[in-house]
């Protein structure tokens, strides 16, 4: 029992050996859905950290100024300074922990830049993890200029080394707390590229009706068409030719066919419609596959 528990703990911890070295991490939810996050590296996290630091300093200086202003009216300066020092202590040691606990893994800086702290298994963090990762921050921040002063300037070399040494960009605090930092991107829904060019629609007729696009081809087509606008005509020719030439032979098309045009027509046939002006489904196997996988 204990051995099994230990093995499980070890397993969950070890990176999947087949996982390619990538800044993406796959999370499997309790619904058994796998989705990917982009891990946040040191240079995405630094600006968020700087924002948080600036906020902390601004709040501390602001409250101190308010305090000294109010002290001229009432003799509460020393009591106020005592409270302010306690406030400074809480802010300097627990600012990150408190925000990450109550804001679901985010601090103001992280929220502004779309970062979030999660457990390594993709679950949200709890208070304990937030506290651990942010106390050990003090070790990650080494070497510190003026380490004994309360306002040391951290260089985060230890944290940077730790991040470089593992494949999930975890600094020591993340390792101790079992957390990762991910990017929560909000890109707009990128749909299909509309194909309204007459020549593409006309050319699509040349593709045999019974031709079915495979998955790999569909993926290649979607990548190519999404990016072709950014290339010059010569470059498009060069890229498209590799894929288009075998299809020219297969469909008995003349050799001087424009490869870009052929790929656009294939894209139209695969993603948009079988025939121009008709959106009804043709004898294509896609729905059958989809429903089969759904069951």
């Amino acid at each position, binding site marked *: 029992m204990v051995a099994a528990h230990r093995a499980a703990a070890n397993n969950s911890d070890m990176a999947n050996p087949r996982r390619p070295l990538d800044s993406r991490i796959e*999370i499997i939810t309790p619904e058994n859905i796998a989705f990917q996050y982009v891990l946040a590296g040191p240079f995405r996290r630094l600006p968020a950290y700087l924002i948080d630091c600036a906020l902390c300093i601004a709040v501390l200086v602001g409250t101190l100024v308010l305090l000294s202003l109010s002290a001229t009216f009432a003799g509460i300066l*020393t009591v106020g300074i*005592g409270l302010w020092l306690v406030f400074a202590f809480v802010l300097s*040691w627990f600012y990150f922990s408190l925000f990450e606990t109550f804001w679901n893994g985010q601090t103001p800086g992280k929220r502004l830049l779309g970062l979030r702290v999660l457990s390594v298994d993709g679950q949200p963090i709890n208070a304990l993890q937030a506290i651990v990762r942010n106390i050990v921050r003090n070790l990650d921040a080494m070497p510190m200029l003026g380490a004994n002063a309360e306002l040391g300037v951290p260089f985060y070399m230890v944290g940077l080394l730790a991040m470089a040494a593992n494949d999930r960009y975890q600094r020591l605090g993340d390792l101790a707390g079992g957390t990762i930092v991910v990017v929560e991107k909000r890109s707009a*829904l990128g749909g299909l590229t509309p194909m309204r060019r007459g020549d593409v629609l006309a050319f699509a007729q040349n593709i045999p009706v019974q031709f079915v696009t495979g*998955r790999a081809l569909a993926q290649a087509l979607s990548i190519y068409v999404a990016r072709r606008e950014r290339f010059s005509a010569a470059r498009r020719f060069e890229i498209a030719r590799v894929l288009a030439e075998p299809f020219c032979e297969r469909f008995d098309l003349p050799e001087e066919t424009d490869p870009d045009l052929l790929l656009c027509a294939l894209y139209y046939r695969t*993603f948009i419609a079988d025939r121009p002006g008709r959106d009804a489904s043709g004898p294509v196997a896609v729905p059958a596959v*989809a429903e089969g996988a759904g069951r």
Partner: protein
Amino acid sequence: MKVAQLLDHRREQWRDLEALCRELERRRVRRLGPAAVLRFASLYRAACADLALADAYQLPIDTVQYLHELVGRAHNQLYRSQTFRWRHWGHEMFFELPGRLLADRALWLAFAVFWGIFGASLLLAFSSREYCERVVGQEALAHLEASFSQPVVDRDGTGASAMSGFYVIHNAGIGLRCFAAGLVFGIGGLLITISNAVQLGAVFGHMLTVEQRANFLQFVTAHGPFELTAVVFSSAAGMRLGFSLVATGGLARVASLRRAATEAVPTMGAAVILFCLAALIEGFLSPSSAPYAVKAGVAILSASLLLLYVVGLGLRKH
């Protein structure tokens, strides 16, 4: 069905889910109402299903990317961070922690190292002024003697709170740094503990030999037990972290570290609470002109409270 139709069909649902996510990020769940929450859950499940079937649907690569991001965002709104559960932490502090402290070999080691070296340093300083000058430094010694040359008098009452605040930020900061340094295989925390013990021992030993002895004892007696115990606790918590990297108990090192962290943080929490209590006493009672008997009484009371906490509550568990 072609992808274009599928996208037309689904686009609206995805947009709805996106809008709900945005709402949830800004507002509390309760404000949203049950209907919206139910709708969020079903939209989330639908988006998950779409993502799972993206390959079979042959969705374009941009759309798959969008779905990954959308499901990720919704997942983070569905599963939210656990905030402090007060009952759980109360149970941890009063029922679990004392027993664990009593059985924790890191605590005994920290205790032995701190008090052993403190005592040795005190004896050395008591017998030789040269040792003291080497450890503490001549200037610091002169400064120390000067600052205790006057008998302790009442500050005008207002300075006390400022000093308390200062002691919190200074002493608890040292404790937390000692805890973090402990992660380096326990050595970092051990070094800080030893250096603290040597310094404090030398100061105590020296101050007992000079004529400012009475003033010094007037100042340090009351808050001593809480503050020194807090130093020992934070050093022990750091060592628990560091030793877990060496004695992993069959776990991977990182997993072992993570398990030790869940045990060490409550200890560190206790240390921070002790530092704060000590700072209150140090700010208000220690520099006051209260008779020495009162201060000694506070010291005895706080020491017996600590003993009751660690041994009394700890043994009940076993």
